[in-house]
């Protein structure tokens, strides 16, 4: 019996649930214990949940609305993907719906008391929450191990709430703690650092603003590199095509520049410490190729790869985004099943840097066995 059954449908809610349930039942005859569903903003989660419960009635349901989906080697703009896990995974969850620092801290603490075994934490954060505060609290309660990963949104993609957890449909800050499962997590960027490193002298982390680079206006860094093409880059808001790469203790992570402000400061998404040294970066498929090839994977057919991708990476790569997914799928040893979803940013605990690193450009690979 397969351990991970994945299915895709692009039909409307009821028909889609019927289609995937038919496919599941053709290979899986027992009652469904764990059911994950990732769906695009076209679907109403309430109707979706009703149908899932009515047709499949799983013991545990987790659902996530995402602007795009990844199914095998394709990026899907409309549809839903189901993941039926036929494995005794222990899942506990904590769902915080109110953006209140005290509530977040106390709720996470209470949640930590319930957990006995070693866990992997998948956290998903809605736009209402200040991600930097959330991550610092998370570090305070659970540490900064590489068993902590997730991401979140900076905007809403539909009128409907984005998360389903059993009977609960809401936005908010959801953490799933998974144990009795073998998970390997990798972060891959495929970006190459160029030119002279520059120092980010002043940064307002809570407002995601870089105020000074090399003791000058941050925008000057783009003026310096793009010279006569700078005005075009600024006018058509293309600064995000060239993220900053920060190297710290041999670890690197990417900062995406979302926009420039009138005073020459830059709006960013990512993780920057004061006086960090950064380089401008460009996408290089060769680096991605090397990174994927360097992942030490066991040749196990029962492995499922879940990719956490970002909407900013999709914007940077444009039409190459799907080619990249196809390349990843085809580079894997054996034919691993591949699914994935898009967030506005992702994060992953880093034991060397001793904090959870926020990254809006890199890919996170989660190998589930």
């Amino acid at each position, binding site marked *: 019996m397969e351990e991970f059954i994945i299915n895709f449908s692009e039909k409307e809610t009821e028909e889609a649930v019927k289609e995937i349930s038919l496919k599941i039942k053709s290979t899986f005859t027992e009652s469904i214990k764990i059911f994950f569903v990732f769906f695009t903003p076209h679907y109403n989660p309430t109707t979706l949940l009703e149908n899932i419960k009515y047709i499949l009635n799983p013991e545990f349901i987790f659902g996530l609305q995402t602007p795009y989906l990844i199914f095998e080697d394709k990026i899907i703009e409309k549809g839903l993907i189901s993941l039926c896990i036929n494995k005794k995974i222990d899942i506990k969850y904590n769902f915080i719906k109110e953006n209140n620092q005290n509530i977040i801290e106390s709720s996470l603490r209470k949640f930590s008391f319930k957990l006995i075994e070693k866990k992997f934490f998948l956290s998903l954060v809605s736009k209402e929450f200040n991600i930097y505060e959330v991550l610092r609290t998370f570090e305070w309660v659970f540490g900064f191990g590489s068993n902590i990963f997730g991401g979140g949104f900076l905007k809403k993609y539909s009128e409907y709430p984005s998360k389903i957890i059993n009977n609960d449909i809401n936005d908010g800050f959801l953490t799933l703690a998974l144990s009795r499962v073998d998970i390997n997590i990798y972060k891959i960027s495929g970006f190459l650092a*160029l*030119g*002279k490193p520059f120092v980010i002298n002043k940064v307002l982390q809570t407002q995601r603003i870089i105020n000074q680079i090399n003791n000058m206006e941050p925008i000057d860094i783009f003026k*310096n*590199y*793009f*010279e006569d*093409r700078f005005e075009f*880059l600024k006018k058509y808001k*293309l600064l995000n*095509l*060239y993220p900053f790469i920060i190297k710290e203790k041999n670890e690197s992570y990417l900062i995406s520049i979302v926009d420039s402000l009138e005073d020459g400061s830059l709006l960013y998404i990512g993780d920057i410490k004061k006086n960090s040294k950064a380089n*401008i970066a*460009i996408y290089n498929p060769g680096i991605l190729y090397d990174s994927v090839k360097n992942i030490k994977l066991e040749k196990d057919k029962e492995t499922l790869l879940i990719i956490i991708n970002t909407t900013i990476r999709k914007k940077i790569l*444009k*039409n190459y985004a799907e080619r990249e997914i196809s390349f990843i799928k085809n580079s894997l040893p054996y034919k691993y099943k591949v699914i994935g979803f898009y967030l506005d940013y992702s994060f992953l605990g880093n034991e060397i840097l001793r904090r959870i690193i926020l990254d809006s450009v890199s890919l996170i690979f989660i190998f589930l066995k």
Partner: protein
Amino acid sequence: MTGVFLQPIILISSLFFIIILLILYIFSKLKTISLLKEKIYDLNKTIDNLDIQAKLIVKTDLDAKLYQEEAEDKLKKLILLKNLILSLMGVLDKEKIFLQIDEKIINKIGFDKALVLSLEDFNVKLNFGFDKEFIEEIKNIIYLHKNFLKGQFLIPKEAKLYKQIANKFNLDFNIGVIRGRENLYGIFLLSNPNREITFAEKEVLTIIFMYIGQCLDNIKLFEETYKMRETLEIKIKERTQELIKSLKEIERINKAKSDFISTLSHELRTPLTSIKGFSSLLIENKFGKLPLEAKNRLEKIDENINKLVDMVNTLLDISRIESKKTEIKIAPSDIVSLINEIVDFLTPQMQTKNIKCNLELPPSLIVYMDRSLIERVLVNLLNNAIKFTQEQGKIDIKIKREDKSAIIIISDTGCGIEKENIDRIFDEFFRVNNPINMQIKGSGLGLSLVKKIIESHKEKIWVESEIGKGTTFYFTLKIKEENV
């Protein structure tokens, strides 16, 4: 004492030595520092060079990205264009043309609102996102500028029409004209407040407008052709009906004629037989001796009665064949023996006129024929040949085999028939109007009967003739398979 004196000297010299060593050390370090500075300078230069290269790389990368994006965007639009053309290709109803364009297509071209207004009746053919008030205003503006639209595909932003709409609605839009070779069909208004369209997009729009115009032209042409064909079909049907009616009328008249001739011939035969009987008896003096003059007159009467009987009989035969009252018994029979019999029978007549008869016949040839009817054909044709051939003339009778048919050829060296009369010689009662013909007696029914008999065999008869040289009759008969 000496030791006390030496101690400061040793101390001073040691100090001096140390100072020298220190100076040497400082010099060596200064040299190292200078070397390191040089290295740092070189490294900084290398980094600066790398930075210059980085500038070049990012700029090239940006250009490549933009080119690639533009190329892929163009490709996407081309695919869209291809799909749109494919979907429009099979549409033959102008009302359905715009149903092929949905909101998705409009979005893919790069717009969020679209309006198509017919210039024929000012009806809205397509609308995504515009309100009624806007449409009414647009109708009024377009109506005023209708003449300007001729010769345009994409209205330039400098045009009055464009400025009027733009000022009135504070709208960023593109307006295209759907037109064919001669007709203005409509206007296509597309709006996207967020961006300006590129040159490539303008080209795509122009192609779309041109293609829709061409489709509408084709539909118009198709409709016209269809209507013309329909009218033509109706006319053909009417004409066919008329022809069928005329044909039926001709058949009815023919039948009436045949019936009339048949009845008349029957009715004539009885009194003629009686007259002929009495005239024969009178000539043979059965009612007493007649004066010579009366007898001569009576012989003329008898002669004419015989002609009349012949004519009536021939007419009766023709009408019987026409009305299919005569049963035609087609069976295999030897045409050569039949020809020989008839030639033997007519030899005395030929000898009277000293006509030579040449026969080129096979020993025997079995054909399908009604022997008695073909006998009449041969008698008639040979009789004619004898009649129209002058003394010392010649008659040839031949049989030619062609594929599965035998062609019987009877030629004479008579006076010949004029070209203008040749097509009419098989008509009933037709006699060639010339002095030679006038001297030769005949009813004008013989050849008509011949033709009817041949046609009743589903065979062909034709004639070739040259004035002064003679006439040749040809008719065909099917050869029995084993003879073929």
